[in-house]
């Protein structure tokens, strides 16, 4: 028998409460004023690689299609260049909206598995929390091991050139007051209800 899968969701499958929640976050309050003009998608240097363009992501949030918005690749491809944010005629802070979706996706484990970008964000978070400063070498190794080790092959050529130019730092930079920083970070996380 022929199958006719539905290409569009029904409104009863949406979660309007989630939509209302998103609007409360700093930077997300103007999402409801979107006029769906598509300026964001047009100015975005990465929209050609996205599964939903930024305009569609805004529409998904407004209607409350939570899982579609949180599990899409779009939010992770966003490189935070703020082009959409400064061009938006409705002054929606789209970059901050994307950040909020990223956090929501990480909290609920809704990002595509072994996808390097959210893995990078989480490893970066851990390294800086334990040292106070980032280490590019450590970050790249941990990201590759936890997502796709073959990424390292794409870096051999550039890595060697950088090493010869004295641009690879193997010195583990660390701040003196790591404990102080950690107290501050934990208190902020707690105050943020995370």
């Amino acid at each position, binding site marked *: 028998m022929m199958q006719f899968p539905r290409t569009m969701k029904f409104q009863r499958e949406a979660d309007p409460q989630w939509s209302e929640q998103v609007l409360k976050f700093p930077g997300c309050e103007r999402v409801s004023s979107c006029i769906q003009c598509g300026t964001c998608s047009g100015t975005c240097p990465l929209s050609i690689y996205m599964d939903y363009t930024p305009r569609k992501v805004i529409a998904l949030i407004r209607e409350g299609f939570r899982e579609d918005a949180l599990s899409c690749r779009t939010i992770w491809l966003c490189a935070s260049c703020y082009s959409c944010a400064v061009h938006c005629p409705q002054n929606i802070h789209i970059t901050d909206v994307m*950040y909020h979706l990223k956090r929501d996706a990480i909290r609920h484990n809704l990002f595509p598995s072994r996808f390097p970008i959210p893995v990078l964000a989480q490893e970066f978070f851990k390294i800086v929390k334990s040292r106070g*400063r980032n*280490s590019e070498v450590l970050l790249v190794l941990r990201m590759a091991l936890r997502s796709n080790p073959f*990424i390292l092959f794409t870096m051999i050529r550039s890595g060697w050139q950088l090493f010869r130019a004295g641009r*690879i730092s193997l010195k583990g930079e660390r*701040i003196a007051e790591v404990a102080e920083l950690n*107290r501050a970070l934990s208190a*902020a996380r707690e*105050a*943020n209800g995370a």
Partner: protein
Amino acid sequence: MPENRGYLYFPGCSLRATGVAYEESLLELFRVLDIPLQELEDWNCCGATSYMAVDEGSAFLLSARNLSIAGQKENHDLMPPCSACYLVLRKTQDYVAHYPEARRIVEEGLKAAELKPFNGVRVRHPLEILYNDVGLARIKAQTVRKWQGGKIACYYGCQAVRPYDEVDRPHDPIRMDELMRAVGAETVDYSLKTKCCGGSLTGTIHDVGVWLNYILLKEAVRKGAEAIVTICPLCQFNLDAYQSEISKEAGKAFDVPILYFTQVLGWALGGDPKALGLHRSIGGRGLVRKWFSVSQEVLAHA
């Protein structure tokens, strides 16, 4: 004029690793200009784009600690040369000022670490400092070496000029172009000057990152530029470190020096060529050697 008492310098992690030439040339330029820089003590990483993607409270706190340390100093002008550091520090100030929720989180975090609240700190990018505090007239007057290099495409990237408009005009920044012209370099009309390089995408979704940078290189060359000059360590890294790979992938050979604006200014104002980190360039090495060779040097006022 704040330039007399100098600036609080916030290096950031990149300037201690792949972007070390930016730090070297910036320090040499300010030495030649006789403007003191004091490194912010025990500064921590700004969190870049990653912290904001994991937890915004923690992201604000990283900047809050740096701003708090800066606030205890006599000098309140904090100078981060990296675009990501600049933006995150600036954004934290903005959010703490405009969102009571962000302020509450930051205040509790600082209190837990017995850090003082911050206020009165001004976050200022070196491009804006060189343009506003030092000024084109002084740069011009102090130019001792004539620019022997080719035409330049000034590439501003994203986070230094957006969403805040204090460094330059967000849609059509021009200050780096003016600084380059002040030392005698010719700049081209580079329409992609604020298009994003993709940041860390070259390391995560490699092909996507590589093609973004191909577009940036191709357009600069098409406009007649022989070099690209940047204000951001990540832009420099992507265009420079992946240039040979871009050439291979695109089937078009690029050999374009990717310089920091502080290298060109430092050279023109008579800085020690060895102190400008020029030997750390990967793309266009031959041109870098030729343009910045002391034996070729021509005095600007000769």
